């Protein structure tokens, strides 16, 4: 951590010379192949242009923006409350985290504090969402590598989480669970029982996923040593989240700069050693178990009290700006909000973890084979809604 960067930063970018006349692959050793926007493996509309020498990847270039919806521009024409549902749609897999980051950022700007009960509810739902996001990641990543069955197992178990969300706020995926100032909905009757039942339900399932994959020789061969990235490269490229932790940097925003009641809970941060795909897999599996630990502590100690702070109906934050970030399942999700004193934000900038993590793809797959590109895209856990906003 904190190493000086000795590598030439220009080496982080490969130049693909796409403007040159088209050389068919019979003429030269290098082949430019397009993994088009529609592809079963790329988790959304992502286009990756690969320069290959036979099977080896010499360089990649990602073309993104197919899902760009202008969320930041829209934010300038909506009030703070009206913008709340939009943030769910960015990382639609982990919508609750997006909402948490935004609501907390605006609360800071308004200088209000969500009450403790709201914070506990927020933590429980966010950690449930982290579990759901990691389960989806595991299923799709295994499917890309060829193991078809874990996908169905993880989606089946994810259903339990989505049922809890549906009972709580009416939506499964884009939940809009939180409001500025706290939570709108009180927990439903049986919420604690449902969550407790889920906490007991999931650990044997995680063991089942591990049994299928962790010691499976083919899985290990496909993931060990693939997509290595060192800790200093991660820091230089701004990569955060499980990718950073798998490279050995023990840093998690929930511990470094706690928000929303995380300081009340006792949990570990898993780290890896070599920064390859296998370590990222292990780190995320362990994160799932730690999330369960947090939920268990939170659900036993939910305090009574109001769930909404006193927030004016017409929100006009004082002139100023704020940057607030949280540890989303994918990495550091940040909101930079500039207020000009009116009801609409002057500028909202969303710092998406997947966008910055995707920059690392080029470095991670150089020198590897084509089949590894798909494994690495899967292991970076990107959601194009967040990359493109």
């Amino acid at each position, binding site marked *: 951590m904190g190493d000086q960067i000795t590598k030439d930063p220009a080496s982080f970018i490969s130049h693909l010379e796409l403007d040159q006349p088209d050389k068919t*692959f019979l003429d030269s050793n290098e*082949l430019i*192949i397009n*993994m088009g926007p529609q*592809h*079963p*493996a790329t988790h959304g509309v992502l286009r990756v242009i690969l320069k290959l020498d036979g*099977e080896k990847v010499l360089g990649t270039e990602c073309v993104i923006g197919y899902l760009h919806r202008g969320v930041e521009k829209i934010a300038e024409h909506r009030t703070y409350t009206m913008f709340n549902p939009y943030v769910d749609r960015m990382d639609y897999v982990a919508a609750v985290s997006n909402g948490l980051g935004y609501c907390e950022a605006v609360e800071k700007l308004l200088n209000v504090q969500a009450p403790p009960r709201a914070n506990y509810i927020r933590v429980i739902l966010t950690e449930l969402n982290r579990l759901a996001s990691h389960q989806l990641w595991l299923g799709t990543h*295994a*499917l*890309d*590598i*060829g*193991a*078809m*069955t874990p*996908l*169905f*197992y993880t989606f*089946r178990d994810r259903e339990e989480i989505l049922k809890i969300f549906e009972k709580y706020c009416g939506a499964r995926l884009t939940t809009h669970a939180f409001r500025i100032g706290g939570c709108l909905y009180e927990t439903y009757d049986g919420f604690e029982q449902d969550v407790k039942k889920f906490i007991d339900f999931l650990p044997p399932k995680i063991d089942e996923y591990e049994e*299928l*994959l962790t010691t*499976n020789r*083919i*899985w290990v*061969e*496909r993931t060990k040593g693939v997509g290595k990235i060192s800790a200093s490269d991660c820091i230089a490229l701004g990569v955060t989240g499980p990718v950073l932790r798998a490279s050995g940097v023990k840093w998690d925003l929930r511990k470094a700069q706690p928000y929303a009641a995380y300081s009340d809970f006792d949990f570990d941060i898993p780290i890896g050693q070599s920064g390859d795909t296998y370590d990222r897999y292990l780190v995320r599996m362990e994160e799932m178990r730690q999330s369960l630990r947090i939920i268990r502590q939170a659900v036993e100690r939910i305090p009574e009290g109001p769930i909404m702070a006193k927030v004016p109906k017409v929100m006009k934050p004082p002139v100023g700006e704020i940057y607030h970030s949280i540890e989303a399942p994918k990495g550091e999700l940040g909101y930079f909000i500039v207020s000009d004193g009116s009801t609409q934000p002057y500028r909202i900038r969303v710092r998406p973890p997947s966008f910055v993590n995707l920059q690392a793809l080029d470095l991670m797959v150089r020198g590897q*084979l*084509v*089949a*590894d*590109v*798909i494994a690495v895209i899967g292991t970076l856990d990107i959601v194009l809604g967040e990359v493109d906003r």
Partner: protein
Amino acid sequence: MLDYITSYLSSNTTPGQAGNVFWALVYIMVVFGGVSVAVMAMNWLERKALAHFQIRLGPMRVGPHGLLQPIADAIKLLTKEDIVPSEADKFVFWLAPLIILCASFTVYIVVPFGPTHAITDLNIGILFMLGVSSLSVLGVVMAGWASNSHYPLIGALRSSAQMISYEVAMGMAVVSAILMTSLNADGTGTLSMIGIVQAQQAQHTWFIFKFFPLGFIAFGIFAIAMVAETNRAPFDLPEAESELTAGFHTEYSGLRWSLFMLGEYAAMIAVSSIAVTLWLGGWMRPFPNTLTGDTWDLVFSLIPGFLFLGLALIAFIGVARMPKHPYFRIQTIGLAGFGAVLGLIGLVLFAPPVRDRIQDIFWFCAKVAVFMYLYIWYRATFPRYRFDQLMRVGWKVLLPVSIGVLILTAIIGVLV
């Protein structure tokens, strides 16, 4: 003329040995029909079994429990538009699936369903099978080339490289089994398929258990190599959809694609029959040497009938569990009919004359069916090997082990 037909019935040889063209053609029709039905059943079983592994149901609507799904698929593929890429080499494009199909189906003329239940018994049977099934590599390369697109070409080259690599290990494993056939009184082995099973009978041991663990290791090598040979999971990188190159059959659609699939399933059944013949005692019933005697023979001869009655019972349980809604009436009746047919076959299989004649064929098919189920099980469970790892396994792991097994078998065979 009638003599020609009936004279065969009294001889105790295969039609090939007897030189009887009429009966050879009859047998060919029967085997061809049987393999086609087996391929359709395999298609259904794969979808249902894979689905159940993945906690889903699979096809349920087309016919009761999806039993008519293969027929629906066949009709769909037949009526699809026949797309040929404009720059493709038309003749080669048309020829490639035919070559694969012919190569995969021709090997069935030596597959021994019983001591005289084969179309013919070439004295180089196993060599013929391995040789002809290798011709399908040619079809694969032709398919990739004729598509005139670099993704299929890369997929075809990968696929053919994979198939050729694993044939070497397969061949070595087969040779070690052949060596074991020569361990009889006069020291001559045989390459004929029927002869190999008879050698196992004469030596009173299935070759998988001979010189344990050598026979077992040779069987294991063959079992792995045959999965790679037929481009099935976990060695299905050349034809996987989520990889970059979608395989040599990318540009094929409709009937032509279904010919590829037909050839692939037929090849699977063919190499499974090789494995069954060489190591698992072919048409012999289980435990031929430990559980001997007439009572045990009787018990085992009743198993086919009980199996079909059991399947009929499962079908009737399915009927009982069908929803009692008028929309399901046809399906319920269909399933009940299917169950009745199975039960009838079971009852017929109890009749003594049928029982005696059906034994060999039944046990052979049952063992091949176990292998088919294993294929589906592998597909559901394992991730895919990357291409370089696949080649490494074929050349650096399987080949040395198979050569070692061969040498050890030879040494022990001489010493013992």
